[in-house]
């Protein structure tokens, strides 16, 4: 597998996405995708979005509304899963391949690039691999404390457009931080179209 293009996201510059509210998760995923899909043919393309703790802002805001006895927000229902922003990206680029979101762990072999490699071997020409990890909420900070890991101090978003070929050494990084490190390194190797 080889990297065709890379991009990183930035909460400060990520444009709002119509219909998505409150959380930076979806604008970040959309911002990275837009950088990588400009001019790319959406046919025979798949998308894999990785996030270890998901859209914690949306999850926690919905839960707070519930536990405080306030009315639920139907827009938060709509964006409660990453399927929503993946669907938006697929509509904008007429992508009919797989749209996958996953929560990777630290165990090698099951991360987003491993999944992308299998998709390429099966029936696709390109896979857009996205990773978004948000800064900690009180709940995700508690998850980190239980795990003995460090919460993120800031949002992190990165993406790789990958295709068949050689060049990306294994084992692939399983998590979003590893994706970001690859995306921040100038390793693009081919024609992304």
């Amino acid at each position, binding site marked *: 597998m080889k990297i065709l293009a890379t991009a990183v996201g930035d909460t400060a510059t990520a444009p709002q996405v119509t219909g998505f509210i409150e959380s930076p998760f979806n604008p970040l995923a959309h911002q990275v995708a837009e950088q990588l899909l400009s001019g790319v043919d959406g046919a025979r393309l798949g998308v894999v979005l990785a*996030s270890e703790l998901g859209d914690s802002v949306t999850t*926690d805001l919905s*839960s707070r509304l519930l536990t405080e006895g306030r009315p639920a927000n139907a827009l938060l*229902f709509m964006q409660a899963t990453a399927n929503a922003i993946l669907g938006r990206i697929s509509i904008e680029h007429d992508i*009919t391949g797989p*749209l996958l979101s996953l929560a990777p*762990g630290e165990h090698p*072999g*099951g991360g987003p690039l491993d999944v992308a490699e*299998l998709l390429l071997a099966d029936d696709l020409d390109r896979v857009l691999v996205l990773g978004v990890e948000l800064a900690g909420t009180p709940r995700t900070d508690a998850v980190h404390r239980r795990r003995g890991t460090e919460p993120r101090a800031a949002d992190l978003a990165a993406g790789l457009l990958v295709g068949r070929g050689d060049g990306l050494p294994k084992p692939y990084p399983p998590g979003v931080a590893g994706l970001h490190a690859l995306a921040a390194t100038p390793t693009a190797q081919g024609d992304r179209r």
Partner: protein
Amino acid sequence: MNDVVVTGFGVRTAFGDGADALRSGVFAGRAAFGPIERFGTEGLRTGVAACAPGTPRLRTALTEVADSAVAMAGLPPGRGTAVLVGAAGDFTAVTAFWASGATDDVEDSAAGRFADVLAERLGARGPRTTFTTACVASANAIVHGCRLIAAGVVDSAVCAGGYLVEPENQSKFDSGRALSRDGAIRPFSEGRSGLLLGDGVAAVVLESAAHAARRGADVLARVPGWGVAADAHHIARPHPRARGLVLAATAALGKGGPVDYVNAHGTGTQHNDSAETAGLHALFGADAPSIPVSSTKSTTGHMLEGAGAVEFVVTLLALLDRTVPPTAGFTGRDPVCDLDYVPNEARPAALRRALTVNAAFGGANTALVLELP
């Protein structure tokens, strides 16, 4: 490419554990819906779902069905066994945190934990992935297991997924006005008004045919094809002609021709059921009216992340029992839903090959074909 076979399963729904519970509920056309007693439903338009007794934990339920599947398969998981899960985090842990600051189970609020928990319990040392793709999550886990085995990356996979009814999603679906107004799911029927949620957790053991043969394992079914595709149409509504479903099912069906039964996604919503019907017409052409199609969500409820895995098991059981499970709650024909939906009563049939399809928010679709060996 290695052939993929099924050698074990475990399943839990509102009807209870195992195949006999499915036979007494799903295959009897008996809906499991009732007033929710697991949590308060004050302020909701709909307080009905298909729940087992008590307040089970998702981690425990996933562990138990995976144990059952591995025991049935007689599989000793090891280096070559992948563990693939379809699940969101356990929302009861999220609710507990925000309601009282409880952190005892807060790790379960992170979906990725479940693949690790199962892998460590089973001693599986292959790849682990948790898919979070909502209503196709566990179907994605099964498809990924098929891909890993077909490509020779692993020789076996435990694929699981689940959802247990809890207040967060009941509230969200209620706020989205997606829930049925009359206490039943009536897929493909006149008068259908939406879905209801239900408990559903399942696991299956997949192996390469060669690996199963070397072990002398009993093969329950083959999985000759699978597909995953997107509608690229609308975030919350399916493509009216089920573009993604047709693409996914076309890939799954391959060159094997028609099937003897379709376990439909069939959520009981106006948009899903008409689109799915149109898609099945496009897939099967002149054969479509003669292929039995049922939505077993009419008995189990919509099991969200668990739907794909539970309905895979239901489809497997239909093949093994030579019985088409019915669509319960069917009161009459809708002009835009004109297939054979097996209304209300199971039907004996010489089934050899079946298709199960699922769809999700964002226009995500999956399809899996099962065949008797």
